[in-house]
């Protein structure tokens, strides 16, 4: 799209935002956000509902476009159609076809990423095992429980083995046992070198991330490791730190 070199730079960050702003009408959702997320990091976006987390994620993936600022993914300027192949996306909604079976859903989205034949079948079996749905693949998705739908949705995002995983509230509405198993899976993927960006408003989940971005009212109020954030604000929990940063940010504005 621009005159930037077409070679994916191995050293370029997984995602790099520079001076991003997004307005919906007269309402400013995101304001001057700059951030770089290195490869292989498990990055958490933490903020209350309505703070702009989902909008920020949509800008990173190129589904939405910023009014100001630039977005680059793996060194490539966004949005670009071919870059949609590079990441896996899981939205807040499960976004599954209820009339289809789990397997049919996986096969459909696999085909969207150009997977076919034996490779597709092998990948389906792999991700199904990963999210523990192997026995339920032939069931219609409408008969799935909420947790099973969420897991299938995650499986869809993992299907094409993306270098970058973008997950919007992956554990919302999921029981504690399943939540733990999903986070275990995310940590394992992260160790294999997959970059993961995950939004959450659950504070104890935030502590499991390598690095955190606190977002509030469309502004990025702090970016650091969970430990660093607690130290900076002199608090003992992420929750306290978040409140402390929020107040400081409010005073500045």
């Amino acid at each position: 799209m621009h005159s930037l070199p077409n070679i994916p730079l191995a050293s370029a960050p997984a995602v790099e935002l520079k001076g991003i702003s997004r307005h919906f009408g007269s309402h400013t959702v995101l304001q001057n956000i700059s951030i770089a997320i290195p490869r292989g990091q498990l990055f958490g976006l933490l903020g209350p509902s309505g703070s702009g987390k989902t909008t920020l994620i949509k800008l990173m993936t190129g589904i939405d476009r910023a009014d100001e600022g630039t977005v680059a993914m793996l060194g490539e300027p966004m949005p670009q159609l071919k870059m949609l192949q590079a990441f896996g996306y899981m939205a807040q909604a499960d976004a599954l076809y209820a009339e289809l079976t789990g397997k049919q859903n996986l096969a459909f989205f696999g085909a969207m990423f150009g997977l076919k034949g034996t490779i597709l079948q092998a990948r389906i079996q792999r991700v199904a095992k990963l999210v523990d749905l192997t026995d339920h693949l032939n069931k219609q998705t409408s008969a799935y429980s909420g947790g099973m739908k969420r897991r299938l949705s995650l499986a869809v995002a993992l299907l094409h083995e993306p270098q970058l995983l973008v997950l919007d509230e992956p554990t919302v509405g999921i029981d504690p046992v399943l939540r733990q198993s999903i986070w275990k899976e995310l940590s394992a993927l992260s160790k294999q070198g997959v970059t993961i960006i995950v939004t959450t408003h659950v504070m104890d989940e935030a502590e499991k991330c390598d690095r955190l971005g606190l977002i509030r009212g469309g502004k990025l109020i702090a970016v650091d490791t969970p430990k660093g954030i607690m130290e900076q604000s002199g608090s003992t929990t992420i929750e306290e730190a978040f409140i402390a940063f929020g107040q400081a940010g409010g005073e500045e504005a």
Partner: protein
Amino acid sequence: MRIKALAIRIIHQFIKDKRTLALLFLAPLLVLSLMKLVFDGQAVSPAIGTVDIPPTLIEKMEQLHADVTVFANANDAQSALGSGDLDAILQLDASQPKLMLEGSDPSLNRAVLLLLQNAFQNGAASTAPTITYLHGGPDMAAFDSFGPVLIGFFSFFFVFLLAGVSFLRERTSGTLERLLATPIRRSEIVAGYLAGFGIFTLVQASLIAWFSVDVLGLYMAGSIGYMLIINLLLSLTALTLGTLLSSFASSEFQIIQFIPLVIVPQAFFSGLFNLDAMNPWLQKLSLIMPLYYGADAMQGIMIRGEGWLDFQKNVYVLIGFSLLFAILNVLALKKHRRM
């Protein structure tokens, strides 16, 4: 108290939804206006060609508002009747009056017969004419005439609804967003929908064609293959229009709201009603309605037994409409992903 709170909530919801509100008040007005335009226009004046008819009788017919054209020989009159310029030919054959009706539209047949009955009663001639038909016959019921139109209408209507709602589902369930997060092109989505639904519309078109001819016994002078082609093209137009308009609806209910705006006006202009009584420039509205072309071809094939050369223009126009709607749909998807 609960009832009051509920009522206030509903009122608030209605006021927020300006479109539903507009539909509630404006759509009935639109439909009523259309009905008035169709039923309450100028008087119909049948176009009658005459051969060897005494001037006194022609004068009588003109007094009764017939649009009379005098032909020198019967062949010229015949070709005018064939091309649809005339509704009937009255000629004297060995001093015996003979009437040939175009016959496609039973209501026009009746208008011609009534007019001539009056003209003859006024004493111009004592013998009643013998009657023949170019298309159809005296036993062709009104349904035979508007049946072809109804076939087209219902294919169009149901495909429109189905396509509109299912494309909307894609959006509301979040699957469209997920779909657009894959490297699929916008044009591929539209084409995929066309292909997927195309199969069902093909089955539907065949089923309707078979049912109306073999089961309902509709008057059928032409080829069932042609009829299938037209029906399929009409369905494709409905499919592309339905998916396009679903981009502008946010719920199934809002899809239903398109019916009085998009479907009903087409029914009025499709040939179900004789538009000769309507203001001529309003008649031109039919030119922007896909159903008009489909119904016209369908009537031509089923009643007048027309071949490819007679209805090919309608085929091209329907293909044009489908392409236009499909391209607009690709553009409308830009709203969700700008690449």
